[in-house]
């Protein structure tokens, strides 16, 4: 399972980096989204990847840490998702404003001379 998650993070990061280096604003925003997915998965994986383990202590259960996964990264991931979503939405608005002002979707606001 570690392998699958690691490959997924790698693919997302690679695609994300390629996309944010592209000249169109839409590609940049998709690239940033992919990168933030990769980062979220990465944060999630720091709390150990285990299946069927609760992150919250159960009533009257043994307090053995090996029976649980770390809840903190899951909380961090939630925060990161919310913040990432909000800032991406804001970026989208600026992107539309830039399109409206310059009439092009190039990140520099003008088409490169050919």
């Amino acid at each position, binding site marked *: 399972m570690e392998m699958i998650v690691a490959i997924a993070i790698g693919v997302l990061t690679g695609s994300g980096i390629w996309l944010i280096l592209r000249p169109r*604003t839409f590609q940049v925003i998709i690239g940033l989204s992919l990168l933030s997915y990769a980062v979220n998965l990465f944060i999630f994986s*720091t709390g150990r990847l285990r299946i069927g383990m609760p992150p919250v202590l159960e009533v009257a259960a043994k307090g053995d840490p090996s029976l649980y996964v770390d809840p903190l990264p899951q909380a*961090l991931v939630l*925060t990161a998702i919310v913040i990432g979503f909000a*800032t991406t939405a*804001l*970026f989208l608005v*600026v992107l539309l*404003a*830039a399109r409206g002002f310059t009439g092009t979707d190039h990140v520099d606001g003008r088409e490169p001379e050919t």
Partner: protein
Amino acid sequence: MSWTDHLLLMPVLLPLFSAVAMLLLGGEKRRPQKAALNLIATVALLFIAVALLRQADADPDGARVSVYLLANWPAPFGIVFVLDRLSALMVLLSAVLGLAALLYALARWHRAGSHFHTLFQLQLMGLNGAFLTGDLFNLFVFFEVLLAASYGLLLHGSGPDRVRTGLHYIAVNLAASLLFLLGVSLMYAVTGTLNMADLAVRAPALGKEDRMLLEAGAALLGIAFLVKAGMWPLGFWLPPAYAAASPPVAALFSIMSKVGVYALIRVWLLLFSEPTGGDSALFGSNWLLWGGVLTIFYGSMGVLASQDMARLAGYSVLVSTGTILAILGTGHTSVTGSALFYLVNSTLALGAFYLLLELVERGRTAGADMLAVTLEAFGDDAFTEKEVGVAIPAVMAVLGIAFVCCGLLLAGLPPLSGFVAKFAMVTTLFEPEGLAAAPNATPTTAWVLLAAIVGSGLMVLVAMTRAGIRTFWAPIQRTVPRVQVIEIAPVIGLLGLCAVLTVYAGPVMRYMQATATALHAPHDYVRQVLAEPQVKERRP
């Protein structure tokens, strides 16, 4: 717990509540009320910041740290707010700049967009939170708060220029935030804690393999901070973005790049200072040193090459950041103290310069262009209102003197505090015992730094002189701009503060040295944060 203990939380709560109140007040019609509320909140913040500074410095020789346990969770488990000399200084600095920028904006700029006052308060909240928090992930959250507000403020006034540079600014900062998250989670994965003090305890005890991961995490975090600070080659976004921002916003932003520097000082010296660093003591100091020198070089070239004053100011920001980073990279206590003095001086001077340059350029076409763009975007009602407020006499003389003062401060010439700061840096760099004790300063690096500091001062002086001649002496026909008292007062106030810094250089330097000593020996900080007792439940 007396009420003064809660004062530590006020720099965050006060802007938050005033911003909420402004949102509830509603639209454009209530602008006067919002402006009044903003002014009251910012002035109150200034008083709170002064009180906090006195609290942090109550014991002149010791390193007393005030700790606030949020929701009364004990230190490594809950989020803590920590007030030490450095955070108190930064909170005060942002309050001062905030008040100056706000007064300036009240003359006309706050009418150029709808939510200026709300965003302004949220920006202050993010800044203060970032300065006060003692938790790494909470630092991320406050960074996002201040960045989100800064995106809005940068776009204040709209226009193609601001939107285009805003687009770049947001993209760069979003990418940097992702690096921040990666760094934080790597550090958490290795140490199992996010509390900065607890991190400083656990980091030296790590094994060799975990240490590598910790250093990787710290390096990612460092890149995120350095993007904010604008170190070469991560700072290309900075000059155009700051030049496009409206003047009060740009003045407030002059502390934004210092937030990156602050976070770097805080985290780096907690984890990797000599006493606590263990095997990785002063990790990355060479990167800071040489990166800083390259930034100074790049900034100086930019200052010489820039044709308009807003860009000149942007590259001066880079020069000042580079100087601080390079000096920090030598890793010595007394040098860090003088770098902090320089930080305060250059932030105030740059704030004043950003406010001043629009006044100076108002008589020229360039300034008129900027206003015309805003006028176009926001319709006539924003600016055709009759000018209110009292205009000052002898405008050109006042502007000219203020411009000369800015030039002296930025170039580091006597008699103002820029000179004191640079002199202190050079002296501490060459003190024999300082040099012998500085772990990362050989005579060669000291000479390189001296050349960089003095050389960049010369470049800034040349560029400022050229800009001044072109603006004040060369034009044969120019319209004398109408400048209101409320616009020039913040500029004079900031420059006056620099003069005060010069006169009281001794006590201020004592404060900075105490700050640096505490930063380089973080045991006291760590012990006090982790030992902070919970508040007992009050039983009836």
